[in-house]
C-alpha cells in the first residue's frame, strides 16, 4: 500500500538530511506504529506519506514514495486526499468548520462526492465512532477524546485507504485513549484501513501494532519489523517489555494479558520482598492546605468540597479525566481561579494575595503550555528575565538550565526548542525563585521516554531537596515512577487520596502495567522489581526495606 524507495529528505537550510535512504514497504490493512525520539524525523516520515513533505513544507526529496500506486512527486496532498487521511497532532488545529456534522462532511465536499453518498457516509461514520449524540455539538465544546474521534471521522468519511495519525493519544486520559484506540482497531479489522501512527506512549499502543518502524534519527537507517522482534532490542520500550526482558520471558509479551500468563515464576520469586520506595520524612511540615474548596466558572462548578494537604518533600500526582478539575486545582493554588469559596493556604498565606517575587518565592506553576511562560526571543534573554523577575543573582536560571538540559544553547529561540527542552526551560524559569511548592500541569505531553526519564530524575531530586511537588498528569507510568501520593478527581470532587501503590493498584484505569501484571502485589515499576530480583539472587546484598510512611495503608 505504501512504499518508500530510497527516500532521503533534507529541509531547506539544513545540511544533514532528516531521513536518509529510507526503504520501507507497508502492506494493506496493517496497523503500523512509528516510534523514535522527538526530532528524529518521525513526523517527517508521516508527512511524506501524503506529500505534505516536501510539497507543503519545502525541502528536497530524493527517491520516491508510492501510495496506492500514486507517486507523491506527481500528486500534491490535495490530490491524495481520497487515498490518505491525515489526523494532525492537535485535532483542534485541523478543524475547518465549527459543528461536528459539517466537519465530517468537509473533506467529502472538497472531493465533490454526490450529496446522497455524503449523507450516508456521515451517518455511518457517526455510528462507527460513536459520535451520534454529538452531531450538532460545536467542536469547541468537545472533550479531548471526542475531538480526536471527530478528527478521525472527518478524514474517514472520504474512505481513505490509509489513515495517518500523529500522536493520537498523547493528550488524552487513559479512558479516552482506549476509546480512540478501540475505534482504530475497528477500522483496521473491519474495514481493512491501513493505519500508520506515531506515538510516544508505547505502553498504550504497542500491543495493537502489526508492524513497528523505529526511526533512530541522525540519518541512521530506519528499522522495521514485527513488534515482538523489534521490541527485543529497541532502545525504548514500554514497561511490559522491559519486565519481559528482565525476567527473560520467551516469547516477549507485548500485552499485560500475555505477561500475566508468563509472570507466575516471577511472582513466586518476589514473595517476601516489598518494593523499595522513596523515603518521605514523616515530620515534614505542611506546605499547602486546601480546605473545602469550591471554584466555579460562569456556568459550571469546576471544583467542590476539595480538601487536601501537601507536605514538604512529597510528590503528589493529580489524576482524573480531561475536565475533572485538575488544572483548576493547580490554578487555585497559585491564585488564578475565579470565584473561590473555602480556603487555599500556601505557607499560611492566601496565594491570591501574593504578587510578584513574593508569589514566586512561595509557589511556582509550570502550565500545560510551557511556551505561554516564555516571552523573550532567546534562551539567554529568557533566563536573564527570570533572574530579574525573581530578584535573584544573575545567572541563577542559566546555571539551573545547564544542570538540567546541558544541550540547550544560549542563542536559540524558545519556540525552536523541542517540546521537552521547552518544558525544562519553563521549569528552570519557575525554579529560579526556589519556590518550596512546585506545581506542574501535564508535564509529559509529547515527551519521549528519555526526556521523561530525565524529568522523573529531576523531580525526584527536587523532592529530596525539600520541594513539595504536585503534578497533574494522565501518564500512569510517570506517576508510578515518581509520585508518593495520588489524588484522583472526578467532576470536581476528590474520589481517592492515598499512597500511590494503594490508590493506583486498586484502579483498573490508573494502574501501571507492572502493577497489572504482578497484581495483587503492590509493585509499580520495573526498577523496583529489578532491585528485588537482584537482591533475591544475592548479587547486591539483602533487600532494602525502606517503606514510606503511610505504607501501612497500602
Amino acid at each position, binding site marked *: 500500500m505504501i512504499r518508500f524507495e530510497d527516500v532521503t529528505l533534507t529541509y531547506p537550510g539544513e545540511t544533514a538530511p532528516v531521513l536518509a535512504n529510507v526503504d520501507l514497504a507497508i502492506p494493506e490493512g496493517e496497523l503500523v506504529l512509528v516510534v523514535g525520539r522527538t526530532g528524529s524525523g518521525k513526523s517527517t516520515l508521516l508527512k511524506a506519506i*501524503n506529500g*505534505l513533505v516536501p510539497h*507543503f513544507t519545502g525541502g528536497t526529496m530524493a527517491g520516491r514514495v508510492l501510495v496506492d500506486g500514486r507517486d507523491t512527486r506527481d500528486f500534491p*496532498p*490535495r*490530490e491524495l*486526499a481520497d487515498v490518505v*487521511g*491525515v489526523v*494532525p497532532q*492537535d485535532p483542534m*488545529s*485541523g*478543524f*475547518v*468548520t*465549527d459543528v461536528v*456534522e*459539517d466537519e465530517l462532511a*468537509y*473533506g*467529502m*465536499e*472538497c*472531493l*465533490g462526492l*454526490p450529496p446522497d453518498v*455524503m*449523507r450516508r457516509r456521515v451517518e455511518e461514520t457517526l455510528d462507527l465512532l460513536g459520535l451520534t449524540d454529538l452531531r*450538532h455539538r460545536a467542536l469547541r*465544546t468537545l*472533550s479531548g477524546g*471526542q475531538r480526536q474521534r471527530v478528527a478521525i471521522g*472527518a478524514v474517514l468519511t*472520504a474512505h481513505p485507504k490509509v489513515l495517518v495519525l500523529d500522536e493520537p493519544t498523547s493528550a488524552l486520559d487513559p479512558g479516552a485513549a482506549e476509546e480512540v484506540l478501540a475505534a482504530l482497531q475497528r477500522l483496521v479489522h473491519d474495514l481493512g484501513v491501513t493505519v500508520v501512527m506515531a506515538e510516544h506512549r508505547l505502553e498504550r499502543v504497542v500491543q495493537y501494532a502489526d508492524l513497528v518502524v523505529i526511526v533512530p534519527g541522525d540519518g541512521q537507517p530506519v528499522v522495521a519489523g514485527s513488534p515482538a522482534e523489534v521490541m527485543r532490542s529497541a532502545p525504548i520500550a514500554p514497561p511490559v517489555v522491559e519486565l519481559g526482558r528482565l525476567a527473560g520471558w520467551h516469547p516477549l509479551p507485548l500485552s499485560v494479558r500475555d505477561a500475566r500468563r508468563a509472570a507466575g515464576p516471577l511472582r513466586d520469586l518476589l514473595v517476601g520482598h516489598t518494593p523499595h520506595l522513596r523515603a518521605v520524612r514523616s515530620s515534614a511540615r505542611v506546605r499547602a492546605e486546601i480546605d473545602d474548596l469550591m471554584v466555579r466558572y460562569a*456556568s*459550571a462548578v469546576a471544583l467542590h468540597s476539595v480538601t487536601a494537604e501537601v507536605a514538604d518533600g512529597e510528590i503528589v500526582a493529580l489524576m482524573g479525566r480531561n*475536565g475533572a478539575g485538575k488544572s483548576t486545582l493547580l490554578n487555585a493554588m497559585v*491564585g*488564578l481561579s475565579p470565584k473561590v469559596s473555602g480556603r487555599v493556604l500556601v505557607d499560611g498565606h492566601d496565594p491570591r494575595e501574593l*504578587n*510578584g*517575587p513574593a*508569589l*514566586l518565592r512561595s509557589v*511556582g*506553576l509550570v*502550565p500545560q503550555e510551557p*511556551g*505561554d*511562560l516564555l*516571552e523573550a*526571543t532567546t534562551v539567554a534573554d529568557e533566563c536573564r*528575565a*527570570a533572574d530579574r*523577575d*525573581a530578584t535573584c543573582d544573575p545567572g541563577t536560571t542559566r546555571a539551573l538550565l545547564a544542570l538540567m538540559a546541558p544541550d540547550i544553547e544560549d542563542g536559540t529561540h524558545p519556540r525552536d526548542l523541542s517540546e521537552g527542552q521547552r518544558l525544562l526551560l519553563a521549569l528552570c524559569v*519557575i525554579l529560579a*525563585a526556589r519556590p518550596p511548592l512546585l506545581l506542574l500541569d501535564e508535564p509529559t505531553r509529547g515527551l519521549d521516554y528519555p526526556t521523561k526519564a530525565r524529568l522523573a530524575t529531576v523531580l525526584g531530586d527536587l523532592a529530596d531537596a525539600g520541594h513539595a511537588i504536585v503534578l497533574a498528569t494522565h501518564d500512569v507510568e510517570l506517576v508510578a515512577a515518581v509520585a508518593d501520593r495520588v489524588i484522583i478527581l472526578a*467532576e470536581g470532587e476528590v474520589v481517592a487520596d492515598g499512597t500511590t501503590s494503594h490508590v493506583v493498584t486498586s484502579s483498573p484505569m490508573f494502574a501501571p502495567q507492572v502493577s497489572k501484571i504482578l497484581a495483587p502485589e503492590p509493585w509499580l515499576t520495573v526498577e523496583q522489581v529489578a532491585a528485588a530480583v537482584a537482591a533475591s539472587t544475592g548479587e547486591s546484598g539483602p533487600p532494602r526495606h525502606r517503606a514510606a510512611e503511610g505504607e501501612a495503608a497500602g
Partner: protein
Amino acid sequence: MSGDRLPRWLHPGAWWAWALGLAAAASRTTNPLILLLIIGAAAVVVQSRRPAAPWARSFSFFVRLGIIVIVVRVLVQVLFSTSIGTTVLVTLPGLTLPDWLAGVRLGGPVTLESLLLALYDGLRLATILICIGSANALASPTRLLKSVPAALYELGVSVVVALTFTPQLVSDVERVRTTRRLRGRPTSGPRAIAGSALPVLEGALERSVSLAAAMDSRGYGRRGAVSAARRRTTAVFLLGGLVAACIGVYGLVSAGSPALLGLPMLALGVLSAVISMVAASRAAVRTRYRPDPWSLAEWVVTGAGVATAGLLAGGSWLGVPGLDAPIDPPGWPTLPLIAVLATLVAATPALTAPPLPLTARPLPPDTRSARTRLPEAVA
C-alpha cells in the same frame, strides 16, 4: 405544504430577504405608528422563530442600538441644527457663529416641529437597524456562509476560518495574560498586553500553518476541469453583478435617487450574478453537504418581506395620505389601512415559517438551569 411544517431550519437567505423587505418598507415612511408596527412585526417573528444560539441574542442588541440612534439624532437636532416651524418649546442659550458658518448653529430655540422631525427620522433609522438585527437573530451566520455561491467559495472559507479563529485568539490572549502572573509580572496594563502579544501571535501563526496543512491534506483546492482564466471571469461577473444589485437596492430604498438607479440596475445585477453562479456551479468540483433547501416556506417568507415593501412603496408612489406623519404644522399621525395590511403581512412568518428543530429551540426559563448543567455532567 405538510412537508414544510416539519421542524427544520429556514434558509437563511429567506430570513434576510424578509428582513430587507421590512427595512425597505420602513424607509418609505416617517409615520411613527407604522414604524412601531413594523418593529412589532419583526419582534413577533423573532420571538417565535429564534433559536437557542449565541447570535440569536443580537435582536435585543440592535434594539438598544436603535434607541441610541434616536437619542443621538434628537440631540444633534436640538444642539446643532436650524429649527423649522414656529412652536417654540424652550430656548437654549445659543452661540452666534461667524457668517461663513451660516448653516451651523449652536443652541437657540427648540421647536416642536424640529423635535418631531428628528424623532421620526431617528425612529425610521432605528427601525431599519432592528430589521437587520432580526435577520441576524434568525439566520445562522455559518449556515448563511454555507449558502455562499460556488464562485465566492474561497471568500466564504476565509470568513469561516476567521469566525473560528477569533474566539480562539481571544481565549489565547486571556490565557497568556493570566499566565504572566506565574512569573510575578503584572497581568494588566499596556506592558502586560505587549508582553503577551508575542506568544499569542506566534501561537496563532503556528495554528494557521497547521490549519493550512490540514485543509490541503483534506482536498481543499483540488483542481477542477476549468481554467484559471474562466474562474476569474466568473468571479468578476459575480462581484460586478452583486455591486450592481446593491446599487439597485439603494436606488429603490432611497426615495430621492434617479429612476435609472432602481429596478433596471437591480435586474442587471441579479442577471449577471445568476449567470456567473450557474457557470461556476457547472464547473465546480465541490459539492455541498445537506444544503438548506429553498422550498415553499422560503418563498412564503420572502414573499411576506417583498409584499410589505411593495405595499408601502406602492402606497407612497400613489400618494396615499398618512404615510408621512404631519410635522409642520404638528398633528397626530393617522394609520392608513394599507400600512396595517403591510405590517400584518410582515408578521406572517411567525406562522408560516417551519418551526425550529427541537434541539435548537430555547428552553423555558425554569428548565434552563437544568440544561446548562447537563453537558458537564455527561462529559
